């Protein structure tokens, strides 16, 4: 008997929004990635909390899978950062607009 579920969820919500704000407001690509990591972790916390609430292992299992996906994501994303740094010599997202229609 530790805390109400609501508090866990509020904590993860706050973390998620903080991460989102980071993603939206920062222009440095690395900082954006950090924001994404924060958001992912918020989700992980939700999963673990839910696992405890439902007395069910699956929440924890998915948190593990989430971690693995995050690892894969970071790998590719960071490789992209390096690539962009080399080809464009900048990692400022506002300078990337090759997809403009």
């Amino acid at each position, binding site marked *: 008997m530790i805390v109400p579920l609501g508090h866990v969820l509020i904590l993860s919500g706050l973390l998620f929004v903080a991460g989102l704000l980071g993603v939206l407001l920062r222009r440095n690509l690395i900082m954006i990635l950090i924001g994404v990591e924060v958001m992912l972790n918020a989700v992980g916390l939700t999963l673990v909390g839910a696992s405890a609430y439902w007395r069910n292992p699956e929440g924890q299992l998915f948190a593990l899978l989430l971690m693995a996906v995050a690892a894969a994501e970071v790998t590719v994303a960071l490789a992209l950062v390096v690539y962009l740094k080399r080809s464009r010599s900048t990692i400022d*997202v506002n300078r*990337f607009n090759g997809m403009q229609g």
Partner: protein
Amino acid sequence: MTEFLFLIPLLPLCGALIILFAGGRMPRRLLTGVAIASVAASAAVTLWLWPLAADQSRATLFTWFDAGSLQVPMELLFSPLAACMALMVTGVSALIHVYAACYLHHDPDIRRFFMLFNLFVFAMLVIVLADNLLLLFLGWEGVGFCSYALIGFWYRNPVFATAGRKAFLVTRAADVLFGIALLWLFHLTGTLSITAINLQAASLPPASVTILALLLLAGACGKSAQLPFSSWLPDAMAGPTPVSALIHAATMVTAGVYLLCRLFPLISLSPTALAVIGLVGTSTAFYGATCALVQRDIKKVLAYSTISQVGYMFLAVGAGTITGAMFHLLTHAFFKALLFMVAGAVIHLASGEQDLFRLGRLPKRSPMLFWLLLAGSVALAGVPLTSGFFSKDAILAACFARQTLWWTSLGVAGLITAFLTALYALRLVYLLTADREAASGHGPAPRGLVWPLLPLGALALVGGLLNLPEVWGGHAGLGRWLATPSGLSPSHGLEWGLAFVTLLLVAGAWFAIRNRYRVPTSPVSERPCVDFLIAGWKFDSLIRFAITAPFERLGSELERSLERGFTTSWPAGLGRLCQATGQKLRVFTSGSVSHYLVAMGWGIILLLAMLLFLLIF
């Protein structure tokens, strides 16, 4: 023996086909020989089969159409009426073929000419002999095509080609009405056989009969250049003169009269239609005569004269005397073909000059031609005892014999027209004999241009014997042979009176013309009234202004605005619309990551809000 009837039209057709396929390898004499021989043979066959006509022989070759209740056999009917007409067509054609062989001696395209000429005779004979309206229509359109191609025979001159096109289109416009009549007749009677239609005519509703008769009249007017559709004939003079003589004087233009004669049992059921036919005939006769009075082109004089004379034939049909119509048709064929060929010879002598005021001295250059011209002209003018006198008087007498106000007034108008006719016929003679510095030409007239005219000259003078009224000691032979309605028989007093009046009119005309043209004159100064008459009462400008010009202009407008602007371009417009929309939507793909993320965020919020909404309610 009846199956030999098919030889009459098929012989000229064979001639045409031989010329078409083998003409290129033939010498010119052989080619013309084939053309003349085929028509002459046709005339001979007509004479040979003449006895068959008395008992209305028929012959069927094969069935043309057989669909549902429609049966159209290729069937010929050799009635006395058809026999007369066929003999006239083949006979006159044979003479004109001989004339044409000489007239077009130097033309390089003689093969095409005789091919079409023979084809024309074939089509004309189909009209004459057909017992089925559809088969008649085949000939009807066939002569129309030949006329088109022959008017534009000298096709390098676009004016000539246009004249041919005009002739075809004007007659075709009338044929539309004829065609509607044809459809209607089939709808009402279930057959297209002329004989059967005439038999059933009495059982048809009277209102339909009147409209049908008027539609048929319109078709006949087109082919015969009667009033609303008359404007093509003067232009048709662009063709070679033998064409004018054969097609636009003797045969094709009388096809309309012939059609009305064939269908007379139907038409006569409607007094209204008969009155209209008489009116059309009289007014056209008057119109043609006034125009012929002032023309300067020798062929145009004859063209308007033809319009006028065919008007008399319509008047005859209206007055109910088929005999009179046929009588005038025959005599007119003789003297008008004669006049045209004389005119052709005169033009030939003057190296192509057609202006009456630059021609002259005919008696000195070719006395023979002068006498022939005189024979034709007196017949046209209706000088007593010539063929034209008898045929015209028969028509006028039939009008007066009706003794109603309408027909009497039409008869009076016919008399006035007869006076005008005498005026322009004699004017022609005087102008051609005038002693003036005329266009120079080569040598005397070739014999080939003169001797085919001799039989016609004789017929023009004594053709009246064909149907000499009993008053004059004749037996009305034509009327007996045709056994067709001759209208009310006029009293002897009326006939004598009419003959007297005619004599007076001709004499008066002679005095008037003699005073005016005895000394060589120059053309009348340009007066609006004369201009108006020379232009054929300006019907052409009227039609151009009211019909053809708006038709063309509206068509171009339709093409430009509706067709190019909408019907064929809206798919492209649809494509452009998509493109434009895409251009507008491009703004949303800024390419900037943060924009996309914001959009994604709003999306999440939307989903959450939806969830909230669902939870609350």
